């Protein structure tokens, strides 16, 4: 008997006025924007490593291991970027091979 209270919801105005399907918006930032940002970050890392190497060459480096670690970080971030590019290119070539 108490279930009848639920039926009152159907009587609310505007319940049927909802659109049948909601248009999905495109994400604000696409893959290209993300990729460009990542390229920028990798470039910044490479610049840091480059500056460290310059400082090492002119002889004003306090600790050598920071230089090596920055080099490693730059290398890893570049490898990640290269792998992302490889995957994207693989997908592209897969699409290009599609028979029509």
């Amino acid at each position, binding site marked *: 008997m108490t279930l009848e209270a639920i039926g009152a919801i159907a009587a609310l105005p505007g319940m049927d006025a909802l659109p049948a399907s909601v248009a999905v918006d495109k994400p604000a930032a696409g893959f290209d924007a993300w990729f460009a940002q990542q390229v920028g970050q990798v470039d910044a890392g490479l610049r840091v490593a480059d500056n460290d190497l310059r400082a090492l060459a002119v002889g004003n480096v306090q*600790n050598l*291991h920071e230089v090596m*670690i920055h080099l*490693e*970080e730059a290398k*890893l971030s570049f*490898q*990640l970027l290269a*792998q992302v590019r490889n*995957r994207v290119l693989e997908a592209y070539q897969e699409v290009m091979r599609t028979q029509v």
Partner: protein
Amino acid sequence: MDYAAAFRISASGMAIEKTRLDVTAANIANMHSAGTSAGAVYRPMKVVAATVPLTFSQQFGALVATGGGVQLASVEPAQVAPRMVYEPGHPYADAQGMVAYPGVDHTAEMMNLNTALRAYEANVVAMNAARTMAARTLDIGGQS
């Protein structure tokens, strides 16, 4: 892909071991530097390392709190008595002909040197392990 944190932890370890090496080298270098008096003589230094306390966000967010590495707490003079040597002709000799030299324990300093070196190597190995792990991660889904 937060391998930079692992690198930072290892880097802090390397920095502290480098400091330990520097301080030990200074102790050994000053082993025979005489002082004008027993109070003014060089005192062997000692590196005190401490764990970096976790930040609030680390403590709050981390289910398994990862350490934040190590930091230099202080470099303190060791409480050792100066070594008194009988050298009447020395310009710093006192009334009894005794000259004060730092009480550097040669054996202990060499041990410090070795442990600092090995600990540095261990930090490098840990960092290389993190790097290898990151590189293996990039192999996921790769050709062959």
